[in-house]
């Protein structure tokens, strides 16, 4: 008689532990979801209330673009085509382009890698600098 009781007690303890584990886990996570939920909202908001771009910061950030976009007539390979002229495009177009590369909805290996290293503020800064250029 004692043995089944011990097993039952053991099972009860095990079940309680198992049941309470996820509870504690979710309780610990309770604080982060507040900010965790705020984060996915940020990119969605970026479309409407994007950070204000600082052209001077954008000037510094765009040194990395020169390897391709700074060489007149430079060509992409596989497939072969000239890398686009991006100076003088609108800030919104440039912002959207970088966001699309970052999200992976526009495909280009180098540009996806570059865009993933940029914050929303970086993108706004880059777009502000490039959009002010003229031929």
């Amino acid at each position, binding site marked *: 008689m004692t043995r089944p009781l011990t097993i039952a007690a053991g099972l009860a303890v095990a079940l309680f532990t198992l049941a309470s584990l996820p509870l504690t886990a979710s309780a610990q996570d309770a604080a982060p979801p507040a900010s965790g939920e705020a984060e996915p909202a940020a990119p969605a908001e970026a479309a409407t209330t994007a950070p204000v771009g600082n052209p001077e910061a954008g000037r510094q950030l765009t040194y990395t673009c020169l390897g391709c*976009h700074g060489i007149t007539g430079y060509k992409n390979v596989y497939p072969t085509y000239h890398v686009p002229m991006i100076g003088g495009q609108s800030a919104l177009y440039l912002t959207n382009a970088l966001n699309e590369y970052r999200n992976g909805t526009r495909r280009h290996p180098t540009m996806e890698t570059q865009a993933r290293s940029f914050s929303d503020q970086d993108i706004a800064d880059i777009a502000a600098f490039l959009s002010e250029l003229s031929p």
Partner: protein
Amino acid sequence: MIHLSRIGRLAAASLLVLAIAACGGTADDADGRRATSVAGLPDGRVSEGEILANAKGPATGQSCIDCHGEDGNAPLDDSYPRIGGQYADYLAHALHQYREGRREHALMSQQAAHLTDQQIADLAAYFGSRPTQLRDLHGVH
């Protein structure tokens, strides 16, 4: 022995192809504005492209000019790019990306969906031949 020499020739040919391909990623000032150079695309015809650029697309009821403006230089909306004088082969690449679903836009994906390679080449040649408001980043820092 014949087999071996064949392999040798194949290897040499492969190396040659690789060597030629390796030349692709360099600057090319001389023919920067040539009509098109996306591999395998037909040559673009500017006059045909002009007609197509002004024709209403069946999917959207809009022409290229309706949204991108005269010469592709007066976009109707801030989110639309200036395309006048942009490199024709890049424009052709962009239309191919839209057509193949590798780039998405509510209007452009539909506009490009039914374009033939020849139409893409013609449109790219036309807009590439227009004056531009764009520039590369050479010397901007």
